[in-house]
């Protein structure tokens, strides 16, 4: 793991030097949350039209934070690969795990910052509604992010060029969001889609975050925790098989 923290710190600095990506991934989900929160009065279970399920802008924002971290990771990995940066780093004593792990740590760190902004904004703008356990919510969101990031690695492994990376990650991640149970319950999906939705980390992320939000706690959602961990392991294992350095 020689060089791990140095590389992580370096990649953090480099990330902050690109204002568009930096502001976009960090602030956009929070802005969206404030906007939606105003529209739906955040955190309060609001029935979305006929579907009689709670829609929670804070959870949407948390999942979006995870997704934007994933998109950013996919973009960086594909640009690094196309530019020969991955190849150059790999020819040093840096281990492959260090090179890729540094990016994951950077993404998780920015996820934490973004979540903190989200919770701060929620506390100030919608007092009384944001009663969630900050620590539990953050841990659940980080676990979700990690699991979705591993899917991101799989996408980054398969996407041939940087040009398509943004497109393909968006085309993969946003439909996942639609199937996640955030907008309508998973069990109302057609059978096939329902089965697929359980293979996607977003579904378990939404279920776990909802659980943490309404206070039903970790015990009631151990299945989702296990699923996130299993999916993380599975996607990571698959990525290591198909990942290309150049």
């Amino acid at each position, binding site marked *: 793991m*020689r*060089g791990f923290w*140095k*590389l992580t710190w*370096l*990649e953090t*600095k*480099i990330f902050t*030097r*690109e204002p568009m990506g930096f502001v976009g991934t960090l602030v956009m989900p929070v802005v969206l949350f404030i906007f939606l929160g105003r529209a739906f009065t955040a955190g309060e279970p609001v029935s979305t039209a006929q579907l009689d399920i709670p829609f929670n802008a804070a959870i949407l924002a948390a999942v979006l934070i995870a997704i934007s971290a994933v998109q950013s990771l996919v973009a960086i990995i594909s640009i*690094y690969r196309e*530019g*020969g*940066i991955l*190849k*150059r780093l*790999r*020819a*040093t*004593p*840096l281990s492959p795990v260090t090179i890729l792990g540094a990016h994951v740590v950077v993404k998780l760190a920015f996820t934490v910052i973004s979540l903190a902004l989200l919770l701060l904004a929620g506390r100030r703008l919608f007092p009384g509604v944001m009663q969630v356990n900050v620590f539990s919510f953050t841990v659940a969101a980080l676990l979700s992010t990690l699991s979705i990031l591993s899917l991101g690695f799989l996408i980054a492994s398969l996407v041939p060029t940087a040009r398509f990376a943004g497109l393909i990650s968006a085309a993969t991640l946003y439909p996942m969001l639609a199937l996640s149970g955030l907008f309508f319950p998973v069990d109302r999906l057609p059978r096939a889609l329902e089965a697929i939705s359980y293979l996607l980390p977003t579904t378990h992320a939404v279920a776990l975050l909802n659980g943490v939000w309404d206070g039903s706690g970790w015990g009631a959602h151990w299945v989702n925790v296990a699923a996130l961990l299993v999916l993380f392991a599975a996607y990571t294992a698959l990525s290591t098989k198909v990942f290309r350095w150049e």
Partner: protein
Amino acid sequence: MKPVISVSNLGKRYGRTVAVDDVSLEVFEGEIFGLIGPNGAGKTTTMECVEGNRVPDKGTISVLGLDPRRDANALRQRIGVQQQEAHLQKRIKVWEAVDLWRSLYTRAVDADALLARLGLEAKRNAWFMTLSGGQKQRLFIALALIHEPEVVFLDELTTGLDPQARRAIWGLVTDIRDRGTTVFLTTHLMEEAERLCDRVAIIEHGRLIEVGTPDELVRKHCPERTVVFTSDNANVAERMPGLSAVERAEGSGETYTIRGAGDDFVTDVINFIAREGIRVRGFRTEIPTLEDVFLKLTGHGIRD
């Protein structure tokens, strides 16, 4: 001299394309060894297999007595690598890259001294993306030298650089050799090979077709020499054929072009001119280059 790199019967294919087909070579301590050939000849693949950055299909490789795959970690500490068309993070600063690289090796030279030696001290705080082509290559040389490696690999180091930047880089490479480091480079520029390399290997279609010093190869494959001189004396050409090495003598007006072959040819012409008392106003010799050797051996130019 002992070989620091030995390659025997190296082979590598990508799918159905044979990139390297049975290459064997030796690189000796303290020399600049050049692998030369056109694009796609197998230069980079050979070099990457030797560095341990690519897995060969067959053959054995030894670098500093180590196996590049099995002893990859030990070897990385002792070799320096510059890759073809490499890039770093757009917004990484020069000193940050040098600092990261220094932290990866068990020994490292002084960063500032190295940057100064490569003329990059004024660019310490510059982002990689703002560097010129020559500056980028000098930074990659710095990164390859940061841990005082015993062997340095330079892949197409000056491709895409302007002639001035290229010359500056050539000076740096000779300097690396003069400090006792073995240099293994690839190039498709014959002038570069001729200027820099102590020995060259010509590779085409994944096979080595000739190995030797540039001078040896020229003498062996292109012994032709041409002397061109201008003189007021008339009918010089008619008297020429008496020279043993002369193959063709032609004169157009006052300019005489004499073609021959062999090491003694130029001397013979000079002696002839002196003997005959010919008054010469201008004199030059044309000696074939590695480019001509390449053309002769492969039947086509290197850029065709």
